């Protein structure tokens, strides 16, 4: 009990400090765009050709971060696999999925995949992009894990997709290095903004990310499920 009270006091003190600080210094919504943000908003579309500024930030301006981000996810997936490798499976009573679930998911699954693909292909135009798309795809698989008893995607395939997508991402970056002397440079033609085939390498990267995130999340879920 005392522990809880003390923890409460300190946690709230922490919150109080944080809150009072941000509230005084960064009043909500009153901060003008400045620095790089202003640049992105003003010049972003001309420079990179993507109407979704966030996307061009994520994949190009701060594309290096995204590469790291993908790596982190990759790391988590492999780490998880490494840690959970050789798990002794215990026989547990698992509830039988109902017929309705079994049937609907069968039909819903390709649709979900399609939706995911749509999101990552249109990442540079609309909200979304590779990461949400990947998660959506993984959700589809998750659905299948729950509803279909026998469903089990090939681990090899997942792993290969993951690795292959990763290597492709790096190669894309290296292409930039080779052609424009800068890693991850936007070497493809920008095209007309606001169309699908525009914004240079952004769609390519998002497709790669979509595949990669999808396979990684699926991999994570599958590892977790097996325990």
């Amino acid at each position, binding site marked *: 009990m005392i522990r809880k009270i003390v*923890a409460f006091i*300190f*946690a709230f*003190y*922490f919150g109080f*400090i944080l809150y*009072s*600080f941000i509230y*005084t210094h960064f009043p909500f919504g009153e901060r003008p765009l400045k620095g790089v943000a202003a640049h992105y908003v003003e010049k972003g579309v001309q420079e990179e050709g993507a109407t979704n500024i966030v996307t061009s930030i994520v994949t190009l301006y701060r594309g290096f971060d995204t590469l790291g981000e993908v790596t982190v996810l990759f790391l988590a997936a492999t780490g998880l696999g490494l840690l959970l490798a050789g798990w002794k499976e215990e026989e547990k009573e698992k509830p039988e999925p109902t017929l309705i679930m079994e049937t609907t998911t069968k039909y819903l699954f390709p649709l979900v995949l399609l939706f995911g693909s749509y999101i990552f292909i249109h990442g540079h135009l609309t909200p979304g992009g590779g990461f949400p798309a990947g998660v959506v795809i993984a959700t589809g698989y998750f659905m299948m894990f729950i509803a279909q008893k026998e469903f089990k995607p090939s681990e090899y395939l997942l792993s290969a997709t993951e690795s292959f997508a990763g290597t492709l991402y790096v190669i894309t970056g290296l292409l930039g290095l080779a052609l424009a002397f800068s890693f991850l440079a936007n070497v493809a033609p920008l095209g007309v903004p606001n169309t699908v085939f525009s914004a240079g390498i952004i769609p390519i990267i998002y497709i790669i990310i979509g595949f990669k995130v999808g396979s990684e999340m699926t991999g994570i879920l599958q590892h977790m499920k097996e325990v």
Partner: protein
Amino acid sequence: MTMFYILLVFILTGLLTLFLGPIKVLRNIVALLGYLAGSALFIYNIKPGLIYSLNIRVYNIHFESGFSTVFFGIIILAVFLIFLLASFHEENDGAYYLFAFLTLTGAIGVLFAKDLISFFFLFETMSLFSFLMVLKGKNKNSPKSAFKYLVWSVFGGYAFLFGTFLKVYTTHSVMIGDISFIGGHIKLLILLLILTPFMVKAALMPFHLWAPDAYSDSKDAFTVFFSGGLSKIGIFGYFIALFKIFTEIASKYPWFLTVIAWLGGITATLAGIYAFMQDDAKKLLAYSSISQLGYVAVGFGIYTHYSVVAAFFHALGHAVYESLLFLVVAGVYYRVKTTDLRKMGGLIKKMPLSFIGLLFGIIATSGIPPTIGFPSKWLLYEAVIMKGDLLLTSLVFFASITAFLYSYKLVHSIFLGKLHKEHRDVKEAPLGYATGIILLLIPLFVLGVAPGIAVKHIDYIIRFYLKPELGYNLTTMTTPLGHVNFPVVGIVMVSMFVLSLIIYFIFGSTYKADQTDNYTATEAISDDFELHYAGEFYGFMRKAFGRPLKWSFEKLLNAFLKLFAFIGEIARGFYMGDARVYLFYLVLFFSLLAYLMGGKL
């Protein structure tokens, strides 16, 4: 440049012996040749007044040679030769010589060092490799003793380093130079700190705790160098600290010198008492070594020309006879494989040369003329009386009485008394030891009769710092209190001895009696009968001293260490929580800092 080369020669010799490791003969020859090359360089090229500096980016290494360099250098090199001779017979491997030569490098290098950082570097080198040498030691206890030695010598080294930095901070000079112009009492602190490692090396109480163990548990040959050679660095350090670094100590802090003198006296006395209570030859000698080094501290503490000459001469004498004693014990150990005094006896017939070595060694230790021990003791007494500290004189005198006690215990338990059955086939110590003994007996007598040889050199060292008052020539010394002619004393003794011998030969004849042919109050004794009185020798003195004998610095220190251990346990408690506790530290830390920043946010 030569100074640098000398050190390089020693280091390379050490490395060469390491790599020529497998063959013992080769190793020995290389070691000897390397030593000879280095010492030849030293003796022919090192004259007072050489200067050399070497730049390693941020630090400049400065070397300089003075009279003291030559004096101590020759002592250390000579003792190292004895060590080498003895170590030919020791069990040794490549690393043995490597460590030994690096120790030598450090010891000789310290004599060259002109700035305090180089001094520290070389001093630590010496401590470190002598530690490794002790660690390699000869028995189960060696590692423990080595540990003790390491901690103490590093304690000293760090104190020195602290002193160095204080000096550099206050004077902006890293050179070994005068600090008496600094205002305030910080100069005393600097002096004390700089003096500490030397008090440790010279085993001045209460910094002596490592010495008995380290001396007795290191390899026998190395102990010769350890006690005879390395302790001289301590003496050299006294000289550096009291004469070169704080030149006006006598006028500014006379009480400090008094404290040193009294510490020296106490050391000499207590170590002497501990020495004759020991039952192990090397432990006994270790304490005897400490006791003798106490006199040196007294000499420095009195701080007159007489006393300092006496101190230097005593250091020289200490090197000679303490090396001799350890060497003999090493030879005996080589033959009988023990240093326990209770397990030996009657070896005089088997090892006559060793006996002669030990006999004159103890005679010199006790300070009986005409050996090297006498001039320094004579001069020291005169100096202390002149200073007017009669109680200290008495204390020193008491210490020299203890020297008789432990000397006799040593010689009796090893060489006199009844020969043990298992030692009937023991032979004389092998060539290396014998050579060493003979080599050491020469200075033992020569300097005892003609101390002027050394005194002249010592006078050169210190006349720059102290008004030269002592009158001396090759064979005499004169102080306001008195005058002594050393050869006369020697001649008197020799002629009296001859006279007694004549009386002896005039009357009657002798016949040889067996050792069992003894007065035993009609009890029949056989060969197996334990007649040798060696166990509990001076045991009754334990009763005489009573409780105070049990007091020791070690217990005090242990109590102190326990305190640290307790604090350590508390500190460790911090790291024993679970993950939530650690997180709590984080939040607490955040809150605390935020609170401290308070209104600034």
